[in-house]
């Protein structure tokens, strides 16, 4: 690992200042479960590391008119939180599919978003739940729909000096589900992840189908959504929507799966997800 400067700011403005000073050469660290691996492998050598764990504004998990997840909320907290289990069970179960207890106790939701891996498990379900990213920078606070947060693998809309404060998730009036496919049952990353949230039932009045790991960024399968909106939701329509979602996916061939296989799995996962929502499990 290459040497680096280390900062541990206690306020957002201090953090912003250091970030701006180092321009693109500084990295924030919370759990470090993505960052340190890259640094140890020599794929990343930032000039400065900014520990953001002492900034109180980034903490907290609250629920009133909506759910607010501070960027430092750990995956294990999301998995365990009684509030999330009750009102956003799919979010809790998405966190449960990730890594191991030890890693989940370190890794944060903010890190999972800002690392912007196409396979990030929390992204599809949070986008399906229509979450908003709250961002702070030199010019103050701004809000971006999480759907528009990701721009490329490893990249987001965060500008120089900006950091993700929290995620706001609206209260849900319908049901949601996250399905993940990976070769190994535990401690594996998604070959395909599918987050679905819907409102109404027969007809569906609203549905959001988000595909993970099959495009450079989490992908909304809008044509598949259209297929199942309104009218009576039959098995045939679900199967058609699943096929459409598979066509909408833009996967690549890599060591984790071929284009052919990833499309197959998108189809199966979307079908199972929609069927599960309809059947209430």
């Amino acid at each position: 690992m290459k040497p680096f400067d280390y900062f541990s700011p206690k306020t957002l403005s201090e953090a912003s200042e250091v970030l701006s000073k180092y321009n693109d050469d500084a990295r924030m660290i919370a759990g470090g479960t993505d960052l340190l691996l890259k640094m140890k492998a020599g794929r990343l050598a930032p000039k400065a590391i900014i520990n953001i764990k002492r900034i109180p504004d980034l903490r907290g998990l609250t629920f009133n008119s909506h759910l607010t997840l501070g960027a430092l909320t750990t995956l294990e907290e999301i998995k365990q939180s009684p509030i999330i289990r009750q009102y956003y069970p799919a979010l809790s179960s998405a966190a449960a599919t990730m890594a191991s207890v030890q890693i989940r106790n370190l890794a944060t939701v903010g890190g999972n978003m800002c690392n912007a891996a196409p396979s990030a498990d929390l992204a599809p379900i949070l986008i399906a739940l229509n979450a908003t990213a709250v961002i702070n920078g030199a010019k103050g606070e701004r809000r971006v729909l999480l759907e528009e947060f990701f721009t490329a693998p490893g990249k987001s809309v965060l500008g120089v000096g900006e950091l993700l404060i929290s995620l706001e998730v609206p209260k849900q009036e319908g049901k949601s589900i996250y399905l993940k496919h990976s070769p190994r049952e535990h401690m594996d990353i998604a070959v395909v992840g599918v987050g679905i949230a819907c409102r109404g039932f027969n007809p569906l009045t609203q549905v959001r189908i988000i595909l993970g790991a099959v495009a450079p960024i989490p992908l909304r399968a809008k044509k598949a959504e259209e297929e199942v909106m309104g009218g009576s939701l039959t098995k045939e329509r679900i199967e058609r929507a699943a096929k459409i979602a598979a066509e909408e996916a833009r996967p690549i061939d890599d060591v984790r799966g071929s284009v052919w296989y990833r499309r197959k799995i998108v189809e199966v996962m979307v079908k199972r997800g929609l069927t599960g929502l309809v059947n209430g499990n």
Partner: protein
Amino acid sequence: MVIGQRIPKLDAPDKATGRTVYGHDVKLPGMLHGRILYSQYASAKIKRVDVSRALKLPGVKAILTAADNPPTKFGYGKDNTPIKGDVVRSFRDEVAAVAAVDADTAAEALDLIEIEYEPLTPLFDVRQAMKDSAPLIHPERKSNLFQKYKYSHGDIVEGERESDVVVEADFELPYVAHAAMETSVVIASFDHRDHLTLYSTTQIPFLLQRDLAEALGIEGNDIRIIQTAIGGAFGRGLDIYPYEPIAALLARKAGKPVRISFSRHEEFLAAPMRQPALIHARAGAKRDGKITFRDAYALLDVGAYISWGSVTPLVMMETTASLYRVPHVKFEADCVYTNNLITGAVRGYGNPQSTFYTETLMERLAVALNMDPVDFRLRNANIPNEEMPQGLIITSCGLKECIEAVAARADVGSQRSEVGSQKDSRISNQKSEINNQKLKRGIGFASTLNVGGGARIYKSDGCGATVKVDDFGHVSLITGSTEIGQGSETILAQIVAEVLGVKVEDINVLNSDTDVKPWDVGVHASRTTFIAGNAAHIAAMDARKQLFETASELLKAEPESLVTRDGKIFVNDSDRSADLAKVARSRHYREGGKVILGEGWYDPPTKMVDKDTYKGNISATYGFGTQMAEVEVDTETGKVRVLRLVCANDVGRAINPMAVEGQIEGGAQMGLGYALTEELIVKEGRVMNPDFLDYRLFTSADMPQIESIIIETDDPQGPFGAKGVGEMGGTPTAAAIANAIHDATGVWLTQLPMTPERVLRALEEAKK
């Protein structure tokens, strides 16, 4: 009775609480950190090497280039050098090495070394490498074919003529990594006499002395090897690899001790791998369920330099020729150089590969005969006290008992009427479409044959031991064998404790220093319990004889009337006794006194195989096992879940049932990975998944229920009747799972690992 007790491993508490000292923990005064620079090309000429910028980096103490190589080549093929000079032949080729004050400085120095390459056309495909027109990996060898193996018994033509059914298939098996928790590590240090001390995780300390001497151009007598605690080995440490002489050469050049410890990435690149294999195999059987013949050809990639990947056919042919009673057998293998990674052996040494094709062909035969697979296997099972056509002399043999024990747990036999047919098996009929998902269940069987009484691959298969009894009744076993996590320290201590009548925790096992311990071939071939166990037994008996000699004076009784018990020596059938401590003291504190030092050497009554026919009794006894896998296949995603794995093993006698179960479960973990998830993906000579993110071991959370069944057959030559078990836990697993997948879905898988994508492709092909 200490034998047969469930005794937790004696070294476990220290390991679990972080007290154990591994090679990565060793720090010597002034020690430097070594790092190796690997080639940028799979095949290239080296035009220029410039280390001048790296040398100027503060903290760099020595840089090694090919100019520092001793004149001799080393390795089994005599084709390797520490640093590569004119030509590189794979991405793992060492092109320079640095010793610096810390690891980061050494890594930075590597970036400053300039090497100019002229790329050559690489050879990655074994079939291409076999062609006459192929460029030569080692031009002095005249051919890329390093070694050809040809074995036969009976008459394959006759066998085929007798057959009512014949099955055949092509198999493709992957690279697999040892994935030991501890990565490779070595520390080299020279003293004022220029004698080398090497702290190493080797499995062959005494052979490594010879190999290192050759690689370094010094005398074996000038090398001492100290084995630090070994955090997993699985066959990785069976040969010399370049990082070992590199550490020594760096230490000599810098005048300071040097440690090289691999990163995980480096471990996946530069440690030897389980050999990938392309296999074509056929087998036949008669209507009455008797196997008629087996015929297999294996095309094997040894990589760019020779290691034990060139010897795996010896084990493959044993499975092919002697697992079950087969009258006509032919086995051929070609071991071929390529520009790929060095291949070696991982737990089973070719047996996981050969058991996969052998046992899936067995299942195909049962299906073709419309015969129950358990019944079919029983009709052909090996039997006790039989010399096989290959020359193996089977003595104790519990294969039949293993098959029956496993089948009883599977609740099959007469109930499985439509086994393996295109229709669903009985199990899957009951449970298909679980939760609206297309899940199908099936069960499959596979057996294994493994050497269980050493394996004479060198002229000696011996091991030495001494047992020392001192004041306070302090007992030390000094054994030539090595603890690699398999539990040998505990097993050997139990054997000595049994003979001397002391508690197992009162035995100290010393096994880590070539200057102290007696000679041994190494830890491989599941040989330690049998060979080192017999040696320890002989040494303990000798020590007991010396104790009885002195005790008979003290107790005024004949030595023949003495017994050991509870740390004392008793006159049989009486309460007259003397403490071990007292007997030892009495022997020491007298005129003309003596030490109590029992000596043991055991070399089994076996033969090396004939160099032309490959026949001969290589092991003093053989271990057997059978596994039954119950799987659930998601026919929409191809994902296979193993619900149960039932494992029965004939271990002769379980000296420690808990340790035997540990070996079975550990073997199953590696077998499950081989079957379903583990594959080092090598594309054009490059490792595509050199980390635990994409190299998927079965984690504890992924493990199915493992049901261990210990079959005891009381081996006539084993220590207290025991034979080896170390490797067989994982050898039949992939075949059992493939057979279970067939039972569930009607589809045969011939490529490992059986990833969801491969299973789904096979299911889709079958639909066409």
